[in-house]
């Protein structure tokens, strides 16, 4: 052996394998697209229902698609503690995001200088918040493609505002990008790792 076994890399690779199935990407992409559809059709519920459905469906999909293909693993207590911390950070971030959302929303109920300034930014603050969430997910869970999503989201929202494009555009473009990436990952998982038949008992 010419080099020491890098245990951190092995653990990271095993952990990340479970985030390379594209399921969350597909669902998030669909959420963006349903938001675009909601804007076009002026049925706000279309955009609001999708995230709720995604949250309900995601664990079942993971269980039905990913687990039989990648196998079962219980990570180390250190990893589990890190996961709990990440979840805490994420909840804190989403709380701050909700607070910021309320601030942005309140900008439409007065004519103070800061309210006018926010109003002039159009929907960019909303895109900024979404990009921050994507960036934080990349940072916390070590999923690098989330950085790409953050860049695409903020760039699309800025371009859409500057060029005065229709609102659905700002949701449809990131939605398509995320959906396509998710689809590629999903197809790769399905083709590379065929499902192990449920009745097959492995003798060791």
């Amino acid at each position, binding site marked *: *052996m010419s080099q*020491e*076994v890098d*245990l951190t890399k*092995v*653990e990271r*690779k*095993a952990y990340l*394998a479970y985030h390379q199935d594209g399921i969350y990407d597909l669902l998030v992409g669909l959420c963006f697209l349903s938001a675009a559809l909601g804007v076009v059709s002026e049925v706000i519920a279309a955009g609001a229902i999708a995230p709720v459905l995604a949250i309900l469906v995601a664990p079942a999909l993971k269980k039905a698609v990913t687990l*039989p*293909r*990648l*196998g*079962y*693993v*219980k*990570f*180390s*207590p250190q990893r589990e503690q890190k996961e709990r911390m990440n979840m805490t950070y994420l909840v804190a971030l989403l709380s701050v995001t909700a607070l910021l959302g309320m601030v942005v929303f309140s900008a439409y109920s007065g004519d103070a200088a800061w309210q006018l300034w926010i109003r002039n930014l159009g929907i960019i603050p909303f895109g900024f918040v979404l990009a921050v969430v994507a960036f934080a997910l990349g940072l916390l869970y070590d999923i690098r493609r989330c950085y790409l999503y953050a860049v695409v989201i903020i760039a699309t929202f800025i371009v859409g505002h500057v060029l005065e494009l229709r609102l659905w555009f700002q949701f449809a473009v990131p939605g398509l990008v995320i959906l396509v990436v998710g689809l590629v990952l999903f197809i790769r998982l399905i083709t590379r*790792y065929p499902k*192990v038949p*449920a*009745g*097959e*008992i*492995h*003798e*060791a």
Partner: protein
Amino acid sequence: MKPEDKAQRDGQAAAGIDRIIHEPARLLILTHLYVVTEADFVFLERQTGLTRGNLSSHLSRLEEGGYVTVAKKFVERVPRTVLRLTDNGREAFSAYRDTIRAVLSTKGKQG
């Protein structure tokens, strides 16, 4: 230190290498089990890239050596073979890493 003393020391370090662990496929299996609490057969198959037969035979060897425990259970009526490093296995793997480090550091200095 005389060259013959150094060679003897290197030989002793190399002699301390655990032969069961010092096999690429088994080392790969133990490395993956070392970084997790437990995993099933499919997980190891995917992560190590070993064939089922190969993985199965190496796991048997590790189980015989007392490094790994194999538990077969049913989760929601689906069979699952759960593998876990024993305390002995964990200690042996740590000792193996130390031994390899020692061997490589002493041999490396000879250029």
